[in-house]
């Protein structure tokens, strides 16, 4: 019965993740564009944007992205085309797969398939699970692999769990911490034999090697709390800072009302979970406190999962700890199941309220986010690329005003710039100072001197380019002019 019910749940999950996938979030952010273009480049040339052959990590913006998302996306964008939908598809599919996996994991953890089913329903409709499945978030791919590892762990296939956890380190940086925790957990629960110890040794060696390759530690170096806090604070304040960050991941207000302040991880007015879920969350805690010996693994999961996030400078940054959010979902499922058994007809009200909440969230995702919060994403590059595309053949030079975002990657993505050509033109110095390629130049515009440039298109803000010379204008979703295209003398 349980598995039959899973089918409609997965269908709902698929709808919530795939519908208008290219429209909301309203545009690609630069990480998504980089993942998509590198996948395209790998498919066509076997090399990344810098010309490195089959890299183990992608240099991109000197943040050395893990390889898995790019390689999984390569055939999709290669066969079906370099589009926003195809770039996000791996994450969306992982989001759907995770619903099935949480059914297995929660069912096994609680030894009750119905609880697995409740967890699957929750994961299908929860704000965080929908949101991170709709962007090309490597963290969402990593969550799916993490759930596979947990499932193997529960099935007592510790060796396989460690192997999968190792594979996960190529999906997302935080997974490196989870690998160590999985290995430690396996060693404690099932004292390893010689064969296993050798296996762990090999995996550890490969892990260290992968950290070295392509400056895999670069990301940790730039975001680590040790770098930013220890230098300027006393040990007590440093420990307080870590403790406060840790608690932030269990803060009811963060989880159920406020969400995060990270610009491209939020929709105004919505938390990570729905507010009503807090009741089940609290009951879930009561359940695992009462039956703590039965839920040792869930305890370990909940307590250890925030570690990757608290090692970094940022405060409440859910994308770093999606496995923790999945653990909260399991907890809520435990509470919801306990309540469901006792509530009788009141369940109809709960179901109705959950549906209303889902409608609020999904409509906000489809309408509010692209209309009001488009500024949190790098909106406008798609439209600008479409506007300049027909002009490119006529002009020798394009000057694109640089803002905060890095337009070069969007230009490559939206114009489907041939990777073979770009790899020859790209500046390979590190850190990179020059993003120019082909006829494109990225720099500030100063019209009084730039206006004399011959055969040149200028793409810039309304403050940099004269209104009367605008050849084309780009409008934001609310109808305000945000960029214009002007041709030099």
């Amino acid at each position, binding site marked *: 019965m349980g598995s039959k019910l899973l089918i409609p749940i997965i269908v709902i999950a698929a709808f919530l993740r795939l519908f208008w996938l290219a429209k909301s979030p309203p545009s690609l952010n630069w990480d998504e564009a980089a993942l998509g273009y590198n996948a395209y480049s790998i498919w066509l040339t076997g090399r990344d944007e810098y010309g490195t052959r089959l890299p183990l990590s992608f240099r991109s913006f000197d943040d050395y992205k893990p390889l898995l998302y790019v390689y999984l996306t390569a055939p999709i964008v290669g066969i079906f085309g370099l589009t926003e939908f195809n770039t996000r598809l791996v994450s969306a599919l992982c989001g759907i797969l995770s619903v099935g996996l949480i059914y297995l994991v929660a069912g096994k953890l609680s030894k009750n398939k119905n609880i697995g089913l409740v967890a699957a329903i929750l994961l299908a409709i929860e704000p965080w699970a929908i949101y991170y499945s709709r962007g090309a978030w490597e963290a969402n791919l990593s969550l799916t692999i993490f759930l596979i590892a947990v499932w193997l762990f529960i099935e007592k296939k510790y060796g396989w769990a460690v192997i999968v956890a190792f594979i996960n380190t190529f999906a997302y940086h935080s997974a490196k911490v989870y690998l160590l925790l999985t290995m430690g957990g396996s060693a404690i629960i099932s004292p390893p034999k010689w064969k296993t110890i050798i296996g762990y040794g090999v995996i550890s060696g490969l892990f260290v090697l992968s950290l070295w390759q392509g400056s895999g530690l670069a990301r940790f170096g730039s975001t680590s709390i040790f770098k930013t806090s220890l230098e300027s604070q006393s040990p007590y304040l440093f420990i307080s800072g870590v403790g406060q960050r840790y608690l932030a991941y269990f*803060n009811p207000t963060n989880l159920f009302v406020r969400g995060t302040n990270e610009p491209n991880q939020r929709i105004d007015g919505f938390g990570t979970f729905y507010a009503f879920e807090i009741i089940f969350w609290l009951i879930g805690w009561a359940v695992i406190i009462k039956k703590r010996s039965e839920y040792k693994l869930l305890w370990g999961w909940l307590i250890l999962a925030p570690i990757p996030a608290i090692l970094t400078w940022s405060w409440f940054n859910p994308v770093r700890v999606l496995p923790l959010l999945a653990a909260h979902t399991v907890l809520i499922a435990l509470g919801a199941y306990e309540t469901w058994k006792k509530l009788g007809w009141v369940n109809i009200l709960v179901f109705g309220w959950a549906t209303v909440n889902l409608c609020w969230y999904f409509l906000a995702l489809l309408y509010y986010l692209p209309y009001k919060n488009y500024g949190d994403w790098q909106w406008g590059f798609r439209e600008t690329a479409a506007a300049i595309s027909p002009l490119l053949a006529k002009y020798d030079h394009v000057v694109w005003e640089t803002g905060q975002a890095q337009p070069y990657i969007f230009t490559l993505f939206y114009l489907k710039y041939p990777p073979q050509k770009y790899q020859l033109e790209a500046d390979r110095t590190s850190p990179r100072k020059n993003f120019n390629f082909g006829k494109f130049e990225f720099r500030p515009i100063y019209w009084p001197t730039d206006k004399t440039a011959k055969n040149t298109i200028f793409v810039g803000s309304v403050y940099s380019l004269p209104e009367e010379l605008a050849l084309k204008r780009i409008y934001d979703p609310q109808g305000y002019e945000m960029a214009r295209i002007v041709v030099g003398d």
Partner: protein
Amino acid sequence: MIALGLIVAKLVLLLTHPLGVSVDQAQIFGPWGFSEMDILILGWVLQSLIIFVVWIKKGSWAALVLAANPWINVLAMFHILELISLISVIGLYGARKKWIKIGAAIILLISIVVNKSVWLKISQNNLVVRLNPARLAQETNETQKINFMATGKTYLLPGWFRKVVYNKAALAIQTIATRTVGVFDFEQWDAPLAAWVITGLSGLPPKGITTLFYFWEIPLMIFGLLSVSRAEWIKYRWWIAGSIILAIFFEKRFFTTSGIGLLPVAATLITKGIIKLSHKLQYAILVLYIIAAVYFGHQLFFDQFSYRYSDAYLYREMANWLKQNQDEYQKAVVTNKFGPTDMMLQFYGVFDSKITVREFKLSHETTEAGTVYIGLPKEFDGVAPEKIVTKIAADDELVHEYGKGVWVASF
């Protein structure tokens, strides 16, 4: 002993590093003849009495929690009447003798009436205002308008669907639910400033709020929660419910005051949590309390700009300057651009016929010899630098684009 040490240390700091009082406190206590030090000592005496009673009734750990906990320390310094109200309610709730209940009720009434300006101020955007049907209707309409605009005015969701999903009743329920959850905000409790500085996450203004708990007190509270018996739950359920309702009623940013009913609950849970720990861990907690109290005390007394707006400090410094230099001027013009300076100077006992309180723009005024002007930096635009005799530095720009701190010019 440690609790006693902490409370004595606080007294020493109060006497040696007095902090300026807030406008609210001056307004309430000033007419009764209280000076700055009287107010601070009153708060200290109240806190000491609470600690003493708690020590007798609940033991040493409870006394230590109340001596070191940031929330009660802040209340005893900046929200004395609210603390008196809390003590009265506890008396009313817990006392067995009728005369104590009557006495507590009278004190409660007086403390609320005297403090009514503060309660009224913080209740401007209360839950009832928020749940006003007209406001709810406006919000539901706004959401539907955004949805329509987002389609480029080409598609409107079916009417029946909009009625089911976007309606006033549902929005009211959601508002109550989110405000209730918002009471339990660890960022607001343990790191309002740090969280705000990093991400603006707490959603609270950067100043005017202080830490309420040390971060490890939160796990202790949760740990203590596990040892609460069913009988205790039943006994205190109305207290807890009432405290939460009070906190929800007011705006979240006033939680230090509006959540006051939760302080005894939290202190009890923390104490229960500590008592449940092993002796070794209890020693660790003791050390943590001492270290944390030192850091908190340092912030409270030596780094007040980190958690308070500088107006209280500036009133105090302006009054001090006028007092110390009263022979140096025949006439003083003091700005009231950032608040009720006349009332504050009266509170500090320096307001006399030589002093005029008003806004000024020195570039537009004819200055007379023997006159000093005290005001915000922008009010001195066009004044020769040698005329500025003192600059009182402070952290905040109290009036937009008027500069930080206060300057004094002498003519």
